[in-house]
């Protein structure tokens, strides 16, 4: 199809990235899953194809500048201009005070969540700018907006929100839109693993939301799908919470008696 959109999802093999890849493919996009995890990527690819969608897998570690550069070059050579970039590759951290974090962990999380996202944007913006067309969607977090005991992960997600706003202003004159979503705790494989290990409590996470439901990747994917569609053509520079009301619930519930 000549006018099929090409959507790249970093970290698209699992979690929110997988949800976004499935939803975009369901909407008719050709989806490129860029991820380090080949096994998960292949399983997501199979699910997309089984649903009648189209997707390909390109191995890529966003923490490696050269791989990112090659990724975008290869995609555009093989498939044509990228219309949508969804920056979903990310790592979590466990809650702890700052002095208990190791700088190795800090560097690893920062290299993917902040620097990796930055490099992906830096590779795609000249292309989109020149074509005067494109959408970038970043995965921020509720920790972008409020304090959590996540001194490594949290500020990095605040930085994602700040970069989203800067790039939206910078690229607006070229009709390129840049937005983010801010999910609360979402039932992704790393969260599920922590719940299974007894480190997190499913019911307590749900009780933190105004609407007491567990956020699923497909819920986040719907917000992403809308923001990346032409229906949102007047929306740029926003960070949309997709959180079952987490953000408003915490202070409301904490009102002292």
């Amino acid at each position, binding site marked *: 199809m000549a006018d099929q959109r090409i959507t790249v999802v970093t970290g698209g093999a699992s979690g929110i990235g997988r949800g976004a890849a499935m939803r975009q493919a369901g909407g008719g996009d050709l989806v490129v899953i860029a991820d380090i995890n080949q096994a998960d990527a292949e399983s997501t690819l199979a699910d997309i194809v089984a649903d009648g969608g189209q997707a390909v897998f390109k191995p890529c570690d966003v923490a490696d500048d050269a791989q990112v550069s090659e990724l975008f070059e290869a995609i555009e050579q093989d498939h044509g201009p990228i219309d949508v970039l969804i920056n979903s590759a990310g790592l979590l951290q466990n809650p702890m005070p700052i002095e208990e974090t190791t700088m190795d962990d800090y560097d690893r999380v920062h290299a993917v969540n902040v620097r990796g996202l930055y490099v992906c944007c830096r590779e795609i913006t000249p292309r989109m700018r020149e074509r005067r067309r494109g959408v970038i969607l970043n995965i921020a977090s509720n920790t972008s907006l409020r304090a959590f005991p996540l001194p490594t992960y949290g500020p990095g997600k605040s930085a994602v929100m700040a970069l989203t*706003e*800067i790039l*939206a*202003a*910078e*690229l*607006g*004159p070229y*009709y390129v*839109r840049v937005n983010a979503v801010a999910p609360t705790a979402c039932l992704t494989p790393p969260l599920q693993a922590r719940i299974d290990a007894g480190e997190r409590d499913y019911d307590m996470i749900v009780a933190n*939301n*105004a*609407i*007491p*439901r567990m*956020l*699923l990747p497909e*819920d*986040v994917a*719907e*917000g992403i*799908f*809308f923001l990346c569609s032409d*229906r*949102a*053509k*007047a*929306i*740029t*520079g*926003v960070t*949309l*919470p*997709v*959180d*079952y*009301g987490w*953000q*408003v*619930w915490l*202070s*409301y*519930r904490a009102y002292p008696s």
Partner: protein
Amino acid sequence: MADQRLTVITGAARGIGETTARRFVKGDDKVVIGDVLDDVGPETVATIEAAGGSAAYYTLDVTDETSVNGFIDQVEQDHGPIDVFINNAGIMQDGLTIEEFPMADHDRVWNVDYRGVYLCCRAVVPRMKARKQGVIGNVASLFGIRPYAVTAYSPAKTAVIALTQILAAECGPYNVRVNSVSPGYVHTPQMQDRFDQGIRKMDTMVKDAALGCMTEMQDVAEAFWFLCSDRAKAITGTNLPVDCGVLVATPYNAYPK
């Protein structure tokens, strides 16, 4: 149709409300318009019905508690439970300093733009809570997010955003969602009149937007359509700017040498 959604939109005889009404009709909702514009409202309904849609008009003055309560009683009596309620009725003010702007005008702005929203929410919330189902959408404003030289309108819209968050928390446990949309500079017929009269200038509004355009009424309607749909079931308590990037472009472009 037994499961046709019933959507109520205040101030929808014309402008953004009317466009939103038409969007919801297109999505197969039955739409009830409440407005003070008795000369325009019935005509809007007539054109919707002529095109095969389902709509009704009622006189509603959101500044009058009796009118609001009577309206909601009557609508539910005539059409059944309200599924979606959009608080769109609002008035603008001229850009004047605090001492220049008469208190009578100040009170009028607050009565319509905030107290009217409060009254309508107060009347519809218990019904939605009892049914454990419903969505409320409020028209906030870019001016409610940042301070602009409209000393009544801007704080009133900030109050709408605050109320949206409080009600989202209050109603979340009842599965009722509450969100707001913050339009930027919208190209309404009323705004076009002001351009024609030389009171406002389109050039400056366009220059302030990252995307270099004005928000169209349809853009706002699409945002409400998404937020009020089940695809946004995980989204409550948010305020979504639909501003062509004015929020991000204003500081970005103001960066001094």
